[in-house]
């Protein structure tokens, strides 16, 4: 396992009247090259969890391990770790601060001690990996870009560190549908072509069902369910209890099954579902 949590617990403000147990004894593992999703309702502890992966938070109980080593024992270099396991927060455009796109994207590489052409290489890689043309954008001010462009620049800043893992915490909130789809397409292309490990936190069930290979479902600080999307969304009542939704296609296929139709229920894209239903209707006609 690349990333592993063992009995991981975290309490905010322990010992005050405002104490919150945000994570309770979490055990999970994520392998290299996986695309996993983390879902759960507001306040269920998703953001708290992912901040443990690169040592932004220190567990108040249990262990956080990367490649089998507890990152809080001995000599783990946290800055180095953070360049390997990169984290993009919600509304990432709010973290932009430099005068030019180039400088902002270069912030990460520079903190890794790079300069000159090596750094420029990284910036170029970051921008092109998010579908932004290096020469068009390098000298523009990040504050005068559209919302979608800003977000891609922020993501480019992460990619420029050439991380092995990216953790995306609700990266597409407030974007229009096409912008959202394009952004996620870039990410899943990086996952396929660059073997990037992706951990996606989102409230969008359709999106996560389509993209993720494995899901973790959180409820009030506990990991209540994990598995492939098709498995997870079969537990209809549990999912609804935790305040989440079943993707429309799963719901449709499951209802058809309940009415005695022989359909697969592990399909999440328009093409697949349409194919399945058309096949069914052809069989019924013959």
């Amino acid at each position: 396992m690349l990333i592993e949590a063992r009995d991981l617990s975290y309490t905010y403000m322990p010992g005050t009247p405002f104490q919150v147990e945000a994570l309770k004894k979490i055990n999970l593992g994520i392998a290299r090259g996986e695309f996993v999703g983390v879902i759960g309702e507001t306040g269920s502890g998703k953001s708290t969890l992912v901040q443990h992966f690169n040592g932004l938070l220190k567990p108040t109980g249990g262990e956080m391990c990367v490649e089998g080593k507890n990152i809080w024992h001995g000599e783990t270099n946290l800055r180095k770790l953070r360049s390997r396991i990169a984290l993009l927060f919600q509304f990432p455009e709010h973290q932009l601060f430099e005068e030019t796109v180039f400088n902002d994207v270069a912030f990460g590489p520079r903190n890794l001690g790079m300069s000159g052409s090596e750094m420029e290489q990284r910036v170029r890689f970051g921008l092109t990996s998010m579908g932004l043309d290096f020469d068009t954008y390098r000298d523009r001010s990040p504050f005068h870009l559209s919302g979608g462009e800003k977000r891609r620049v922020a993501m480019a800043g992460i990619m420029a560190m050439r991380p092995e893992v990216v953790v995306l915490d609700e990266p597409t909130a407030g974007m229009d549908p096409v912008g959202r789809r394009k952004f996620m397409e870039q990410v899943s292309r990086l996952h396929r072509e660059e073997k990037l490990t992706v951990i996606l936190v989102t409230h969008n069930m359709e999106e996560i069902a389509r993209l993720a290979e494995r899901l973790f479902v959180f409820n009030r600080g506990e990991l209540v369910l994990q598995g492939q999307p098709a498995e997870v969304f079969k537990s209809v009542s549990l999912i609804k209890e935790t305040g989440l939704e079943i993707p429309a296609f799963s719901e449709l296929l499951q209802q058809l099954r309940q009415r005695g139709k022989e359909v697969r229920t592990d399909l999440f894209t328009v093409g697949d579902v349409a194919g399945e239903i058309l096949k069914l209707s052809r069989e019924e006609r013959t």
Partner: protein
Amino acid sequence: MSGMRSITLGHYLPGNSILHRLDPRAKLMGLLILIAALFLIKTFSGFFYFGLFFVLTFVSSRLPWRYFMRGLKPVLYIVFFTLILHFLFTKGGQVFWRFGPLTIEENGVFLGSFMTLRLILLVITTLLVTLTTSPIAFADGIEFLLRPLRVFRVPGHEIAMMMTIALRFIPTLMEESDKIRKAQMARGADFESGNIFRRARNLVPLLVPLFVSAFRRADDLAVAMESRCYRGGDNRTKMRQQQVTCLDYLGVFTTCGIAAAIVLTGV
């Protein structure tokens, strides 16, 4: 450093004690009287009686003392600093201790302890009031107390409104700065090491987004307020009309009496 979301200095703790129920105006008036008394007291015995009065009030408020002490922590540095300054630099009277050019002398010890006690009593009394008064009631109280100053064109309503909004947004902005700090740390920023100049420069990635965000929020809020018909203090009513009860009069008068008694014992 994480987990500072809802704790701010002197964060209000709801409760149902007499102190909680007193009208904020009565409480603020009482506080003013007590502060005045503190500056009139000239003897240690005066402080002793004052302290006794404070302890009684504190116990009656049923605040958890641990939480109270936490709120006090940041101030202790200032108190300690005052003490040291007086010890080292106020001269006169008997010399207690000598080390090279440094001496600690009688007057220094006396004045140092005296000032420190005054400062501590001042802080804990104020903290007691802020911990038992909801921010909005506090702002209302201030607005009321500033009302007589309107003849001097002191904008009482605006000041109170600013206080309310500041109180409302402190937790939000603290959360935000925490988030931006972490976001930049995730890009390898370093806020902890280096000398003071380096550190100051390293704050740029934190401060720029924080200012941008504060302005954006201020702008959003202004639009939201305007769209809810906000147009200053004129013709504005208040949902919560403060009812002054016998308890409030009693509170103010007792405080007055006790303060006067304490001051007189020390003269």
